Structures are given as C-alpha cells and as structure tokens.
C-alpha cells in the first residue's frame, strides 16, 4: 500500500480526518488492539531472533566472540533488519514510532527464554557465558529518530548509524567484566577467553574465531572504533534490508485488503 498524495489540505478535510480518528467502530474495538499487540509479539520475536542467529550466529552467543572487531560489525546489521521492517509497518499503519522498540522487547524476552531454557537448563552452559545482546536502548533511539524526522531515509542514515553506536556502548558496559585480564597458563588473557576455552562447546573451539584478521590492526588500539564505524555503515544497509522486508513481504500481500478502508 502506498500513501496517497493529497490535494492541498483544507480545514474541512482536516476536520473530517480528525472525526474519523475519533470514530467509534462497533466491530473494531480495543480487543483487536490487544489481539494484535500480543499475538504479533511471538511472530516478531521469532523473526528477529532467527535473523540474529542467521547473520550474527556465534558473534551474539559466546562472551569470547563478543570481540572488538567482528562483533561491532556483524551484530548491528543482524539485529536492525526486523526492527526496521516493523518500524515501516507500524508507522505506515498507525503512525506509531514503536516498531523498533516492539521488536526489541519481543526479541529480548525470546532470547532470554532461549538462553535460560535451552542453553542453561538443557545445555548446561552458565548464563554468564551465553547472555544475549541488548538492543533496547538502540531501538529507542531508532524509533525516536523516525518520530523526529518522519523520514525513513533520514532514519536509515542517522538512526541506523546511531543504532550501531548505542548498541555497542550499551553492551560494552556489561561486557566490561569479561575483558578483565587473567594470568592463565602463562598468558595474559581475558576472562572471556578463559570461559571460551574452559567450557566445552560442540565443534566450535576457539581457533575458528576470525578476530583480529586484516589490516585494521594498523589502527592499533583504535581497532574497535574503526570496526564500529564500519559496523554502523553496515547497519544503514541492514536498515534497508528490513525496509524491503516490511514493504515487500509484509505490506504488499495484505495491501489490497487495507485499501478497503
């Protein structure tokens, strides 16, 4: 469904739309709002978590994969796609800047359920090794930028870029204890490294990690900020992947029904 370009606004038309907004429908009451918000959460949570697993995979899983080079690049791209799609749908349909936050809450709860039941209780991994990424602060930013700019283009440029930065800052806060050094087998390594080696994983020993490959090392201690800037650029691209999903997959098939209004 595409928005209709209107003729110059008249006071008469404005009043008509105001009236329409406040109209009481006998067959569409608030129960349908509850049905939507509650039931969609499961679908959105699954979509967001699966997208995260597909694109970020181990980089969102283990503390020792939350490194300073790949994690800031891969994770924002992976977790901005569904928030972007929902943002388009919810802004288009209801003019609510809630798509990203709604997705973030759904995904956060789903991720924690998965970590607690599957990985801690069944798999036996300590939660301290498998906690999921937090995207809520970044999602609030994304929705706020859309609210202020009313533009998906500007939201992609400013919002998605900031999304990656805020995501990294908020998660670095909780990652900090895992970056403390330990003298282990004659080496100075991080707590996260020791967790990664001590806790036996199926088929993913730490040598597979791609961390610290490439010429980003030439930036010395600033590696993580270069990665972050690149990750933020990738997030802009990820935002448009989400827009494509929102516009193409979610809206188009039901658009003809929506137009009946």
């Amino acid at each position, binding site marked *: 469904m595409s928005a209709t370009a209107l003729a110059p606004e008249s006071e008469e038309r404005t009043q008509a739309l105001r009236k329409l907004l406040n109209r009481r429908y006998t067959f569409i009451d608030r129960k349908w709002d509850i049905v939507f918000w509650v039931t969609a959460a499961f679908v959105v949570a699954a979509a967001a978590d699966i997208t995260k697993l597909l694109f970020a995979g181990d980089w969102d899983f283990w503390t020792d994969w939350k490194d300073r080079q790949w994690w800031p690049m891969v994770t924002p791209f992976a977790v901005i796609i569904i928030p972007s799609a929902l943002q388009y749908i919810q802004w288009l*349909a209801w003019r609510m800047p809630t798509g990203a936050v709604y997705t973030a809450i759904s995904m*956060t709860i789903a991720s924690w359920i998965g970590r607690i039941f599957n990985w801690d209780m069944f798999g036996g991994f300590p939660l*301290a090794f498998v906690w999921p990424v937090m995207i809520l602060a970044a999602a609030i930013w994304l929705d706020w930028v859309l609210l202020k700019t009313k533009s998906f283009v500007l939201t992609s440029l400013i919002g998605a870029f900031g999304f990656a930065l805020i995501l990294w800052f908020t998660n670095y806060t909780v990652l900090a204890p895992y970056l403390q*050094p330990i003298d282990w087998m004659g080496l100075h390594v991080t707590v996260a490294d020791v967790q990664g*080696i001590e806790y036996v994983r199926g088929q993913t020993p730490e040598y597979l990690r791609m961390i610290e490959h490439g010429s980003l090392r030439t930036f010395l201690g600033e590696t993580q900020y270069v990665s972050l800037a690149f990750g933020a650029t990738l997030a802009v691209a990820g935002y448009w992947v989400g827009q494509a999903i929102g516009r193409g997959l979610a809206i188009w098939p039901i658009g003809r029904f929506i137009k009946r209004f």
Partner: protein
Amino acid sequence: MRSKLKYIGAVLAAAVAVVLALPPAPASAHGETAQEAFLRMGTVAFWDVKYSAEKVAQGEELTITGTAKILETYPEQLAEPKLGFIGVIAPGPTVVIKERTVNGAPAPMAIEIEKGGVYQFKMVLQGRRVGHWHVHPIFGIHGAGSLIGPGQYVDVTESAGGFTNEVKLLSGKTADLENIGMGGVTFWNVIWLVIGFAWLLYWIVPKPTVTRLPVTSQIPLNTDGGAYGLITKKDHRVMNIMMGATIALVVGGMVWQAQAYPDKMPQQVLHFAPEDAVVDAKFVTADASDGAFDPATDTVTAKVKVTNTGTSPASVESFMTSTLTFPVAEAGSEGRSVQISPATPIAPGETRELTMSITDEVWAKERLMPVGESRMQLTGVLRLQDEAGHENFVTIQSFVTPSAMA
C-alpha cells in the same frame, strides 16, 4: 460428529503435551561413525589415550593424556592442516578444561600444525555437571573440522557445594566464571526493559491502534499526523524526555564500567607453534599394499614391506587406526588384535614383507570398511619397537579391495 472431533483433538493435544514434557534421552556418542571411513583413518591417529579416572566429583580433576599424529596421508580433499586445536568434546560443558599442554609445554590457545606432526597432549579437566558423560579428546583442524579420539564414559558425582569455577584476576580479585558479570547483565537488561515497556505502553494503552488505519491510509507517509491528532506535541515532549533519559543512561553506563573495571584488554589472537615431540630416532620404514577386506569374516588383510634401518632387531607391536588400537596377538590372548606373519623380529638391514591380518566386527560396526564407497582405504600407524625399547610410529596406507568385488 463435532464432539468426536473435539475428543480426538483433545487426545492428540494431550499426546503432544506428554511427548514434549518427557525428558530427552541423553546422547551417548558424538556421531563419530558418521564421518567417512577414509577421513577417520587418514587424517589424525590417536594412541595411548588414557583417562586418569572414570569417576570424579564436581570440581575434582581428571587428566587425559595421549598422542595424536596428523598423518602424512591427510586427504587432499581437505584444507591443508596448518592450524589445530586439541580439546575435548562432551555433551556440553559437563567438564571444564583447566589446563592443557602439548609436547610438554602449556598450550592454552590454538597450535600451528603440519602433516606428520606428532602431538603429545595432556589435558586437566574438572567435573562440572552431575551425570554419566561420554568424553573424547578431539583434534580440531581449521578448515576441516574436528577429528574425534578414543572416548570414555566419565561419571561426575555431586559435590556438597556444587560446582564453582573460581579464578584469580590480575587485579588480585577472585571471580567465579559461573556467574561473573551477571549482576551487570541482569541490572541493565531490567533497566532497558523497563524503559522499553514504558515507551511501548505509552503508545499502546491510551491510544487506539487498529482504528488509526482509516486516517493513516489517507495521509502522506512523511507526516506525523499532528494535525489530525495522531501524534501530538505532548507525545513529542514525552518521547524527548525518554530519549534524554536513554542517552544519560548510556553515558552513565560507560562511565560506570570505566570506573568499575579499569583494567581491560582485548581478546586473544595468539597461535602457538608447539615444541617438537620428543620421539626416538627413525629406525624403520614401512609400506603397505594389497589391502583386502572379506565382509563375510570381517577380516582385513594387507602386505606390509618393512625395512629395518636401525642397529637392533625390531618388531611390530601394534596397529592403530581411527580411535582403535590393535595390539599384536599373543598366544592365548583374547580381544582386539592384529596378526603379523611372520612374527619374528626383523633384523637390522633386513627388508621383509609381512602379512597383516585383523578380524574384528568393529570394521562393520564403526563403518570403517564401507564396501562400495568411492574411496576404500586402510590407513593407520604401525608401532614398531627395537630391542632397546625405542619406538617408531610409521604411517601406512593401502587401497582395499573387498573380496566380494574382487
């Protein structure tokens, strides 16, 4: 009819609920026999793998020692073995690895490896999860995957205090790896969820949702609909306050972590080239040919031409392949063995053709002689010993012809 359908539906739902509620059967192995035989035999050989205990309490130590060799026959289909990792595989972190040495030196990270390389390993584990667990050493090879060594069941019993994994940080403080950092993880997750829910509920609770559609479908996308009451100035004001609080918390979090954890470092990227294994000087060469397999009797035979280049008579002691060791059969002995004929020691300077024969159900049971597959080979390591007790481990390989196809 309708009540019948309801009844059937209820029974089906109950059945699904019961199935879902049942605990899954524990896995007792790691799919090692699913790998192609030529990979299991031709990539890495393990021998002398020993477990110091079969039963440990939580927190008690268990040591696995053994030797692994990247065989010279490493298949060309796999990536060249350059980087490896010796570890253990188990059903999750049922044990934790507390210490690891390769060829006598500490080897916490991955190691640089090569074909023909011999790696004597020692891993000190601690029991963690209570249960009956199958534990294997593994040799992971970058680009290829993990090759599994001989496994053993380990019983982990409950300790009075459960399992803790305390480490001493460089700062001098101690921390338990089981729950380190979880205070911060929990605190910040709760904080962000509270703010997130506040943001969401602000929009959902006082404002109708679905009934906004008749208006939004008639106005341009790049407007907040303020003129019609979709988004009001108050909405903007409240959202600005919440955004401000969010930014303040993000900055506050960064300040807090900088003060709470001033000493931080990036994760490790080191690889080690381990010391060469201490091995005896080479005194023997061996070459295999004419491999054959008789599925009817589960018997593998091969000719092995052995040359003793040393100064002392040498004898074949055993043949190792995949996770199996076949010691040379002794009179009256039972169990897994290899027959060598003639069995007399090979004199210095002598070249002799031996016939090696192994009859064992394990070929079929572990799918090590898969008749009809594209690459049927016998690969393994012969262990030879001279009279002075020196040992050589020689890799041999021969194509195998199944007798049914001969």
